[in-house]
C-alpha cells in the first residue's frame, strides 16, 4: 500500500508534517521532528531509486485522472537522482539545523522548521511532477518558504536580501509563467510529455522560441545564472547558516533540473538546434558565470559571499554541460550538479559551525580558525579541494567529464575557460585557507564545534571523498539519465 504510493508520499510526507511541526512547542522539538521526517523522506527516496532503476520511469496519476487531463507524477532516472540528492541533503542538514537554526530563531523554532519542511516539499514537488503548471505552483511554495527563511538571518541586512530575492524570484516565476502561457496557446496542453510530443512541428517558430526564452530566463533567475545572480550572494550570506547550506545545496540545483527538463524533455534537441545562437548564447552565459562569479569571489570579504559567488561560477559549469547539447555534456552537467551539492553543502555547514563559534563569517573575524577548530576546518578543506576539482574528490569527477565533453566538440576556448575558472577558484579559496591558518596575536583556546554540527559537516565532506574515490554508480546513473532525457526529446 505504502509502496505503491511512495512516489506521492515522498512529497506529501513533509507537507503533512508541516502543520504538526508549526504547532510543536519549544526550541528543540520541532527540529528533532523535522529531522525524523527528513530521514523518512530519504528512506522513501532510496526505495524509489531502486524502483526506477528497475522500471525506468514511474508514473502516478493524481486523483486517478489520466494525463493530460489530470496531473501526473513522473519519476525517471533524472528526477530520481535529484530527488535522492534533495533527500540526502535534507537528512544531513536537518539535524544540524535542529541545533543551529533553533538557536538563532528561539521560540519561533516551530514556524522556522515548518518553513524548512515547506521548502523541502516545494523542491521535491518540482522534481516529482510531470505537469508544467504544477512546477510553477511548487516553485512558488519553495520560493515563499525560502524568502521567509532568509529573512530569519541575524542581521537586518537579511531582510533586504530577502526582499530583493522576493522581487527577482517572483519576476523569474512570472517569466516562467509567460513562457508556459505561450506554450499552452500553441499546444493546448500542460503535461510535459504531451508538450514534448506536440513541439516538433513548432520547432523554430517565433512563438516557441519566445516561450523558450522566457522559460530559460525565468528558471535562470531561480538558478542564479549569471548575470541573473544578483540576489544570491546577499541571500546566502545573510540567511541563517543551516538555511544557506540547505539552499546552496538544493535550490539552484532544482532550478537547473527544471531547466534541463524543459530544455531537453519539453523542447527537445531538434527545437534547440533550430534556434539560432541558442547554443552559443547559453555557452557564453555559462562562461560569463564561470569567470564572473570567480572574479567577484576574489574580492568578497565574507566567506558566505565567497562561497555564494563561487556557486554562481559552478552553476556556469553545470549550464555549460547542458549547453553542449550532447549526451556527454548533459551527463557531465548532471554529475557536477550532484557533486556541487555535496561540496557546497559541506562548505556551508563548515562555515556555519565557524560562525557558531566566532560570531560571524567575515574573513577578518575568522583569523586562526584552523587552529581553533581543526576538524571543522579539515572538512572545509575537503570541500574546498573538491570545489577546485582536485583528483580523488567529487569535484574532479564532474570537471573531468565536462572537459571530456567539451573536447569532444573541439571547443578549445571552453576548455580554457574551465581552466581559468578553476585556477581562480584556487585563489579565492586560498584567501580563506590562509586566514584560517594564520596565527592571531592572541590565540583563543581551541573550541571545536559541537558534535551535532560537526558530524553532518564531516559526513558531507566524507561524501565528497567517497564519490571522488568511486564515482561509477553516479556516473553510470547520470549517463543513463542523460541518454533517456535526450532520447525522448528528439
Amino acid at each position, binding site marked *: 500500500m505504502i509502496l505503491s504510493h511512495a512516489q506521492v508520499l515522498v512529497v506529501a510526507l513533509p507537507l503533512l508534517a508541516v502543520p504538526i511541526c508549526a504547532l510543536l512547542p519549544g526550541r528543540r522539538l520541532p527540529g528533532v521532528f523535522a529531522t525524523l521526517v527528513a530521514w523518512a523522506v530519504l528512506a522513501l527516496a532510496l526505495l524509489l531509486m531502486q524502483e526506477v532503476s528497475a522500471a525506468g520511469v514511474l508514473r502516478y496519476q493524481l486523483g486517478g485522472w489520466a494525463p493530460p487531463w489530470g496531473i501526473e507524477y513522473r519519476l525517471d532516472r533524472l528526477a530520481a537522482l535529484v530527488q535522492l540528492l534533495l533527500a540526502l541533503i535534507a537528512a544531513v542538514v536537518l539535524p544540524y539545523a535542529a541545533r543551529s537554526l533553533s538557536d538563532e530563531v528561539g521560540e519561533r523554532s516551530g514556524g522556522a522548521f515548518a518553513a524548512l519542511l515547506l521548502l523541502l516539499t516545494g523542491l521535491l514537488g518540482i522534481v516529482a511532477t510531470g505537469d508544467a503548471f504544477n512546477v510553477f*505552483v511548487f516553485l512558488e511554495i519553495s520560493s515563499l518558504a525560502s524568502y521567509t527563511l532568509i529573512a530569519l538571518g541575524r542581521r537586518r541586512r537579511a*531582510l533586504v536580501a530577502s526582499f530583493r530575492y522576493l*522581487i527577482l524570484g517572483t519576476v523569474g516565476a512570472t517569466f516562467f509563467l509567460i513562457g508556459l502561457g505561450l506554450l499552452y496557446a500553441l499546444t493546448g496542453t500542460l503535461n510535459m510529455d504531451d508538450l514534448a510530443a506536440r513541439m516538433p512541428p513548432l520547432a523554430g517558430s517565433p512563438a516557441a522560441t519566445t516561450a523558450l526564452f522566457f522559460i530559460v530566463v525565468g528558471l535562470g533567475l531561480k538558478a542564479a545564472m549569471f548575470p541573473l545572480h544578483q540576489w544570491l550572494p546577499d541571500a546566502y550570506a545573510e540567511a541563517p547558516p543551516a538555511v544557506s547550506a540547505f539552499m546552496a545545496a538544493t535550490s539552484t540545483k532544482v532550478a537547473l533540473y527544471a531547466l534541463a527538463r524543459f530544455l531537453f524533455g519539453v523542447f527537445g534537441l531538434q527545437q534547440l538546434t533550430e534556434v539560432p545562437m541558442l547554443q552559443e548564447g547559453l555557452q557564453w552565459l555559462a562562461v560569463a558565470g564561470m569567470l564572473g562569479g570567480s572574479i567577484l569571489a576574489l574580492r568578497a570579504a565574507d566567506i558566505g559571499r565567497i562561497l555564494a559567488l563561487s556557486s554562481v561560477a559552478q552553476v556556469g559549469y553545470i549550464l555549460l554541460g547542458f549547453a553542449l547539447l550532447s549526451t556527454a555534456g548533459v551527463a557531465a552537467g548532471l554529475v557536477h550538479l550532484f557533486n556541487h551539492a555535496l561540496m557546497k553543502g559541506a562548505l556551508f555547514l563548515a562555515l556555519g559551525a565557524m560562525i557558531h563559534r566566532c560570531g560571524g563569517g567575515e574573513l577578518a573575524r575568522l583569523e586562526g580558525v584552523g587552529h581553533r577548530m581543526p576538524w571543522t576546518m579539515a572538512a572545509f578543506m575537503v570541500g574546498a579541494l573538491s570545489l577546485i576539482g582536485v583528483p580523488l574528490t567529487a569535484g574532479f569527477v564532474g570537471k573531468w567529464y565536462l572537459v571530456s565533453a567539451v573536447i569532444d566538440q573541439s571547443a578549445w576556448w571552453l576548455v580554457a575557460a574551465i581552466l581559468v575558472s578553476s585556477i581562480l577558484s584556487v585563489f579565492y579559496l586560498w584567501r580563506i585557507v590562509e586566514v584560517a591558518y594564520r596565527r592571531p596575536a592572541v590565540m583563543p583556546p581551541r573550541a571545536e564545534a559541537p558534535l551535532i554540527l560537526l558530524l553532518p559537516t564531516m559526513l558531507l565532506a566524507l561524501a565528497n571523498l567517497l564519490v571522488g574515490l568511486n564515482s561509477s554508480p553516479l556516473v553510470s546513473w547520470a549517463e543513463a539519465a542523460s541518454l533517456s532525457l535526450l532520447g525522448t526529446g528528439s
Partner: protein
Amino acid sequence: MIDLGLYNYWIVIALMMSGLYALIARGNLIRKLIGLNIFQASVFLLYISVGFVRDGAAPILAPDVESYSNPLPHVLILTAIVVGVATTALGLALAVRIHGAYGSIDDDVLDRQRD
C-alpha cells in the same frame, strides 16, 4: 464586426512593460510590489485571452449552449492570483520589517546603508 486579431495581446505586452519598468525604476519597496502586481496581472490577462472563445459562453454548463470559453486558463489563473497575493503579503511584511530596521523603505537609501 470588428476583427480584434491579436489586439488583446498588444495591450498585455504594454502592461507587462509598464509593470516591469515600474518595478525596476522605482525605489520605494511598496511601489516595487505594485509594479510586480501589474506585471503579474498582465500575465493573467494573457492567459485569459488565450482561453477566450468569441461567441462562446462562460464555461458553466447550460442545456442550450454550444460553445464555451476554455476553462483551463481560468483554473490556472485562479491559482496564480492567489499565489500573487500571497507573495505580495509576504513582500509587504518584509517591507514593514525593513522600515522598522532601517527607518526607510527606499531601495536607494537601503543601498547606502551597507552594514
